[in-house]
């Protein structure tokens, strides 16, 4: 099983910035339009936690309206770090469902699909990037179908 390592906020922000384009839209954040200080504040207000697994960054933010649900994000197409995150969330946060909002075209989408997430919808023209509107794909996963 892939090990994931929790990152302190300052390290998490540095890793997000180092991840380049794959970090754009990660939990709704964007290192291109937000400076480190703003990223730190956003992570704090989301109560988000980030973890690293090798080159991959995964993270979650609790859904305040549904404590058994978490928003999750990843910077790569590899499903293993994601599985480890879901395992952690199911075990320690008693999460039963997960929501991922993934900008269209980023490779992380493949990771969610490979992990057993279901694509339930599209938010059309939801964010602006590189001179264009971008759709955001909404994925939902359940602990009974997503964990290895």
């Amino acid at each position, binding site marked *: 099983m892939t090990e994931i390592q929790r990152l302190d906020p300052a390290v998490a922000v540095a890793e997000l910035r180092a991840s380049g384009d794959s970090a754009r839209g990660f939990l709704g954040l964007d290192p*291109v*339009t*937000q*400076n*480190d*200080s*703003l990223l730190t504040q956003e992570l704090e207000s989301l109560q988000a936690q980030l973890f690293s697994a090798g080159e991959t960054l995964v993270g979650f933010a609790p859904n305040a309206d549904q404590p058994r649900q978490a928003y999750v994000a990843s910077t790569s197409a590899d499903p293993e770090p994601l599985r480890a995150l879901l395992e952690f969330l199911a075990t320690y946060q008693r999460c039963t469902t997960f929501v991922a909002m993934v900008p269209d075209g980023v490779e992380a989408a493949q990771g969610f699909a490979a992990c057993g997430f279901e694509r339930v919808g599209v938010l059309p023209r939801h964010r*602006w*990037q*590189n*001179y264009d509107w971008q759709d955001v794909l909404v994925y939902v996963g359940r602990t009974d179908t997503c964990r290895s």
Partner: protein
Amino acid sequence: MPFMTVRHFTEADIPVRTELLRENKYQTNLNDFAMSADDRALAEGMARTISEQHHTKRLFTMCGSKGQVVGFSWITSIDWRSQACELSFAVLPRYRSGFGFKAVEAAHEYLREQLHMDVIINQVLSHNTMMLSADELEANAQIRAEYDSYTVGRWRTACYWTVTRDDVRDRKLREQARRQEIADRVRAGVQGLS
């Protein structure tokens, strides 16, 4: 690697920008408040912009192809809903001859491409012909405001103009047409030779 890149201004950039704020041309052309403030106050002001003022004001560092700091740009009076802001920039003295125009262009690109600004307001004091000649300034100015600023002991007149999404599109189309025309001429010349 692109010729000029825009990145977020960081704490490490503060000493370089402080020095620039104290430079003579900067004070004449932009503002001279640095003369009445000590280094610590200037640094605290910039640190506050980095950490607290994201919604009204943002600072960026302009870098050359090797990542070297060439100058700074900053946006103020940001109206996110109307997608408008005012853009200012200052290039370090040693890079002024070659990088100025590229820096302005890169800043405009970033603001439109990533921050989704539609209307960018430019303000240049009328004596400042570092980027644009007096004639160009006169042609660009949509508003001339006399007694706009008081810098280094004198009242200055300012030229204001906006650059909209349509302006940028028209300029790009004109450039493309010009390039196409040159390419066509070259092609016709080459064919004439053979």
